[in-house]
Structures are given as C-alpha cells and as structure tokens.
C-alpha cells in the first residue's frame, strides 16, 4: 500500500484515523496501531509480517533483558544476539545473492569456474528500515540512553508504525518515546492542522513533482545509450530532483501522518540541495539515516578522535556501508565511496573551501551531488561510465522525450528545491490563504492519483 494510492487515502487512512481516536486507552491505541501497521505491511506480502513480528519479539525480549541485567555477559548477550539476528536476516534477504555473485566474479578473476545455486530471494519491503529501528533501540537500551519498554504493544507500535515502516524516516525510540507514552491522552486537534499540512506538502512533492519528472526521466535513462550531452544532463538533472522530491515527499507525508496520530516524527530532509559543503549536505539529506550512521557507526569506530588518517578511514567505512545499505549493488558502494571521498576532501580542504563565495560553494556542491547520483541511478558501471562520458564530452544524440515539458518540470522543481521553502519552512497552517493553497494542492494531487498514474516510491527498493 502506498501513501499516494487511492486505497490508502480513501480506505486505510480514514478507518485507521477514526478508530484510533475513537479508542480511549493507551493499550487499545497501541494495539490498533500495531494491527494497522501489520495490515499496511501485509498488503504487499503477508508472509513477511512473520519476519517483522520475529524481529520485534527478539528486540523486545532483549529490552526486558536489559531491565533485568544491569551488567555482565548476559547484558552483552542482550546487545549482541538481537543485533546479530537482525543483521543475519537483513544479510540473507538483501545481500545473500549479491555476496554470491560477487564471490563468483572474484573467483572467475582468478580463473576458477564456480556456479553456486542462485536463490530466488524476495526482498521484504522496508526490511532495511525496521532493522535499523530495532538495532538503534537495542543499542540505546544497552548504552542506557533509554529505558526499555515493558509494554510489548508500545514496542510493536514503534516498530510497525505504518507511517515510518517501509521507507523511513528511521525514527529512534527516544525521539517518539514521550509521545508514545502519552498516546492515551493525546489531543486529536492539537497537531491536526500541522499534520494535514505536512501530508499535503509531501503528497505534492511526490505526486505532482517527482512523478511528473519520472515521466521523462525513466524512459530517457532506460535508453541512456541514445542520449546526447544535453539529453544526459537534462535526464540527470531531472533524476536529481525526482529522487529528492520522491523521498522527501514520502518522509514529509510520514511526518504528517505521525502528527495526525499525535506522534511527532522528526524532519528527514532540510533542503539538501542548498548545502554548502559535503558535511552540510549530509546534515540535510536523509537526516535520520546520516545521524544513525554517525551515532552508531562513525563515532563507535573512533570518529575523528584518533588522528587524521583514522578519521578518513572512518569516514570512508561509514559511507561505504551507507552506500551498501541503499542496495545490494557495487554501484551503490561506489556512490558511498564517492561521498566518502567528498567528505574526506572537505575535511582536508575545509578552510580554502569555506573561503569561497556561498553561491559558488552551493553550485559546485550541487553538481558534485548530481555526479554522485549517476552511480546511484545506474544499474551497472558501464551505464555510469557512459553517462559521465556523454555528460562531460560533447556527444550527439537524443534529448529526453517531450524535452520542452521536461525542461519546464526541471526548472520548476529546481526553483522549489534550491530557492523555495521545504515542508518545515512553510509556516503556520492556520492562515486562511495558506489553507486555500493547501486545498488546491490537495485537489491537484488527488486528480493525478485518481488518474492512477502514481508510481511506487524510489526508496522502497532500499
């Protein structure tokens, strides 16, 4: 089920919302949100509900263990076992065939001919996200940052909350712990206008902007071999904005949905293309992931506390794993490595870089990010190399289909991404004029959804 589908908007959401506010007790609301989370998740493939339930139970039990054992081997086991279980599940479903294929390729390099069986594994939707939810919970419990919950329903609500379940944001338990605790006495009207505003802005980002861009980006990049230099730039510019508005749109809708149920989910995108340097970019792009990578990987690796060389190593390792988290493909690893290099270079040349005019830094940073998206979007290194060659060596060829409309869409999206406000900067939703704009925006989005042109979110594949 997608947020931008008619079944979600006209059936799932109204029923979930009305029943939630009709229920009065905390446990009833936990139970209802858990149930609806599983319905939402099972809409794709009910079998994977068992996987999520298993992961939830393992982490919940570990949490109870932390309450019982304050130190010692048992406490460490409560940290290690659930994390290993979660990572094994993630590794099997997401990376098993990738590891197998990579092993075969390496063996072939050395002349060995091996042909292990290729398993037909279906990647459970959102496994990367809820695995991170449970891992951050376990680590925070171990560190004593949070007190583990005794309520299974509260914990299962946290893991299976439909708004953040399949494509994030990666919300840490401590970020919504207070709201979860007070869910039984939450006010329906307090965050209603804010939630609706977030949801509509996200819907517009996804349905009107990202899907319009997809209409020419997808066919153009499917036939990338035919693109000219101008065509390749236009297609990649389109993809740069499509990816942002797609993912930001989803996250903003998730935030809005959270507010509708009295849960304040944190901001995940803060106008990332306005970033002035690589560090700034990662403070603005997929904030929940980059902060998780920082707090649970980069800093435990030593961060920048053990000298320059180790800081570079830690940056590269963090970004390589961050790239791999996005997908089981070497192109994602390359994308992570590219950003690791950007961050390392910025660390090395921070002072001269910061002395440049902001407009120059922003422009260069935007182009650098766009080049990274070439690896991110490419299905092979041949595709990435070809696109980069065509982009930087003048080449004849085709423009994107309906290029005049594509150009208009890119300019409009670029204006919003680089110059306009993001969802958190839009302001007070109670002003009458803003309500009119939101009503029009919702009408426009709904028209497109009713036309059944909406597409899945790009981040579902991760």
């Amino acid at each position: 089920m997608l947020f931008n589908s008619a079944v979600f908007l006209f059936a799932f959401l109204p029923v979930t919302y009305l029943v939630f506010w009709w229920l009065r007790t905390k446990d009833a609301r936990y139970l209802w949100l858990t149930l609806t989370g599983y319905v939402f998740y099972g809409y794709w493939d009910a079998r994977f509900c068992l996987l999520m339930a298993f992961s939830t139970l393992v982490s919940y039990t570990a949490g109870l263990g932390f309450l019982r054992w304050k130190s010692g081997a048992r406490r460490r086991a409560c940290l290690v076992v659930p994390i290993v279980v979660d990572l094994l599940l993630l590794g099997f479903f997401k990376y098993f065939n990738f590891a197998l294929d990579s092993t075969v390729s390496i063996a072939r390099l050395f002349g060995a001919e091996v042909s292990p069986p290729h398993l037909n594994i279906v990647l459970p939707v959102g496994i990367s996200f809820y695995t991170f939810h449970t891992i951050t919970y376990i680590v925070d419990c171990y560190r004593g940052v949070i007190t583990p919950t005794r309520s299974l329903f509260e914990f299962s609500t946290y893991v299976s909350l439909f708004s953040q379940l399949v494509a994030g944001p990666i919300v840490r338990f401590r970020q919504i712990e207070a709201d979860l605790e007070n869910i039984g006495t939450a006010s329906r009207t307090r965050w209603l206008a804010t939630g609706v505003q977030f949801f509509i802005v996200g819907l517009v980002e996804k349905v009107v902007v990202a899907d319009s861009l997809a209409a020419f980006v997808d066919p153009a990049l499917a036939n990338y071999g035919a693109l000219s230099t101008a065509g390749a730039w236009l297609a990649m510019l389109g993809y740069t904005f499509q990816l942002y508005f797609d993912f930001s749109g989803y996250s903003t809708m998730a935030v809005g949905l959270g507010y509708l149920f009295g849960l304040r989910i944190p901001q995940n995108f803060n106008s990332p293309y306005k970033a002035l340097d690589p560090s700034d970019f990662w403070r603005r792009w997929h904030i929940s992931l980059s902060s998780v990578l920082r707090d649970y990987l980069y800093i435990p690796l030593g961060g920048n506390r053990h000298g320059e060389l180790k800081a570079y190593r830690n940056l590269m390792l963090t970004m390589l794993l961050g790239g791999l988290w996005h997908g089981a493909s070497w192109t994602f690893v390359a994308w992570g490595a590219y950003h690791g290099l950007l961050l390392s270079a910025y660390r090395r040349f921070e002072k001269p870089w910061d002395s440049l005019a902001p407009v120059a830094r922003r422009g260069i940073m935007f182009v650098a990010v766009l080049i990274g998206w070439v690896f991110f979007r490419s299905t092979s290194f041949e595709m990435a190399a070809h696109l980069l060659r065509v982009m930087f060596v003048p080449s004849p060829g085709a423009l994107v289909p309906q290029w005049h409309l594509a150009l208009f869409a890119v300019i409009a999206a670029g204006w919003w991404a680089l110059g306009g406000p993001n969802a958190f900067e839009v302001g007070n939703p109670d002003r009458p004029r803003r309500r009119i704009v939101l009503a029009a925006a919702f009408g426009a989005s709904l028209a497109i959804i009713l036309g059944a042109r909406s597409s899945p979110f790009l981040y579902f594949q991760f």
Partner: protein
Amino acid sequence: MAARPVARFLSGTALVLTFGVALEITCRIEDRIANGIPLLSRVTQPGHLILVDTGGARGRPNARFGQWRMNSMGFRGPEFTFSRRPGSLRVVVEGASETFGLYEAPGREFPRQLEDSLRQRTAAMCGAPSTDAIEVINGALPGMALPSMVRHVASVVTPLHPDVIVLYPSPGFYLDVQPPRATVGPTASDSSLPAANALRLRLVDRLRSQVKSLTPEIVLTSLRRRSIEKVERQHPTSWKIRSVPEERVALFERDLRRAVGAGRQTGARVILLGHVNQTLFPDFNDAAALVAWEKQFPNTTGETLADFHRRAREISVRVARDSSVDLVDPTKALEGHWRDSFADFVHFTDLGAATIAGQLASYLVAALPNTTLCRSSSVGGIETPPFSPLASGVPW
C-alpha cells in the same frame, strides 16, 4: 456572534470550491499532457469516438478519450495515407471492442501487434530490414455488430484498397433485446458533439473507475446480480432468454455471410477469425465472470451467452467452408495461458492480444506468397488517390 458561523461557512465553501476546481483543472491538464486530449474536449465517453451519419458508423477523426486516440481518418492507430506504395501489403481488421482494444496498453491491441509481428517475420524471412510497407489498419469500433460492419466495409474500408480483410465478429450482440441493425444517422454531415460536453466534469470518471477498482470482486458480483435482478423484475419472466434462440442464430449466420461478401467485394482476401472467450476453455469455472457478462445482456443468462458463442463458432466454420474463405481459430494458441489472456469474459490483455496477433501473423506468412511479403521495400508511385475522403483537421 452571528458573523462567525457565516465566516466559517464562507471559508469552508471557498476551501471546497478551490479543492474541486484544482481537481478538475489538474485532470484536464494531465489528460492534455499524457494523452493529448484538449482541455475543452467535447469527447466525454468512449461512444463519442464514433460518429454516425447516413453512411453509417465510423471513427470520429482526431477524437481522443482516455487512452484511445483516433487518427485524422477516424481509425485507432498511427496515421497512414490513402495512397499506397506499390508492393506494399495492407491489412484491415474489422471487429468490435475486442479488436479495437479496451484493456490493452496503447499500441498493444492485437491489430497493432499483428503489424509488428508481420514486419518482424517478413524481415526475417526475406532477409531484409523491417519495413513499414506492411501496414495493419485497425478498422474496428466499439459496439460494431455485423450489420454495421457490412456497411463500414463498403463505405470506409473499400476506398483503402486492402489486400487482406480480417473479420472478427462479436456474436454477443445477437442476444440483445433487439437484434443488431446497421446504425445510420439522420444527416449526411458530421454529427458534431454539443459544446456543453466540454464542461462535463472529468473527475467523475476518474472517481468512478477508482471506486470500481477499490471494490472487492465479491461485492462487485453481488451488485451486478442485484442490478440484473432489478432489470428482470421490470419485465415478464418470458423476457429473459434462457436457451439459444434459433432465429438469432440464423440472423447471425445471415449477417456473417453478408460481411464476408462485403469483404470480398473490396477485392481483398477475407480471413475470418473465430471468436474466442473464456467460457470456451474446459477448465473455465468462473461464475463471477458469467455474472459480469450477463450484466451486459440482462435479458439473457450467462450460460445462454456462452452457448450462443459456441454455436457462433460452429457457424463461422460453416460459413468459412461454404464461402471458401480462410478461418483462423486462436483457441488452441490460447490454451494453457487463457486465464492471463483475458481481461474480462471476451476482451484481451496484452498477452491475449499478442497471442491472437502471433497466430494471425503465422497464418498470413504461410498463406500469402513470399513474393507478396518480400516485395515491400521499394518506394514507388501511387496506386490510389492521394487524398482522404475521411480526413478532417478538426481536433476533438
């Protein structure tokens, strides 16, 4: 105190109006961008893709509705010219909605796939690159029964000088309350659509189709049953046809012979394509599909419809044999994957259309002389007049 509720009411009304206007305008803009439908198009339902005048029914030139686009000569499919290159092969396919294409993606209806298939096969056979000198024209119109087809062939298809005419008749129309007759309009000129159509709300259609797609099949079947029962209650028991009426079978046979005759009069080779539907397959046991079919013809039962189609197939074999025309039966080719080949009881999916097209292409490649198929690459003079009596520059 009284001003507050009034202000609230006005504010709420403004919101609802803004929402509605934005919804409608976006529908129109999206239709314009995605399907090339004018913002103020007067074509507001599939029936408007057809115009009826004293010459009979034909496609409305340049009409567009939903995913359907008529070309400037009133045929679904790409533009073509009346003039033909010497040595080219022109196939016209006549039929109703199954042929016109309802559920297939644009360009995947079986006449289009037949063209692709023929071009590829002849290219491989003749050792030449694929050529556009083989063209397949989709002459079908939704709802076109045999009497209208006879008139259509005579008035619209004949000037196209086809080499081959494929006829795919729809027997179901013969179980309607009144047997089919050729549709003829009151005037000789184009019956233009009323200007008020341009203001018909497009969001209503979108909303309706979404509601339908969201409704579980079991509920839809129940609603269809109730609708059939409601119609039945308005008529005497004898109104319902519960067994195959022989006089309708005879009518179908008579009209099919006329259609074959009309095709022959054009000078083209006539091929009869045997009608297929889900009920012909031995493992068919979908009662809900029969109910959906019966809803289209509430004066008859689903079983009678299925039986009538079986009889119609037998008649097609007989007519083909008596008239010495080719008969292609796609049933065997659909066996094994028929469930994925039908979008409903009679209309095809992309896969079904591909199977039909493949079967027809194989037959044509085998039946037509190699010289006919391989001589198509040279561009020469014009055989037929370089003008189109059907063409119209008016966009709809």
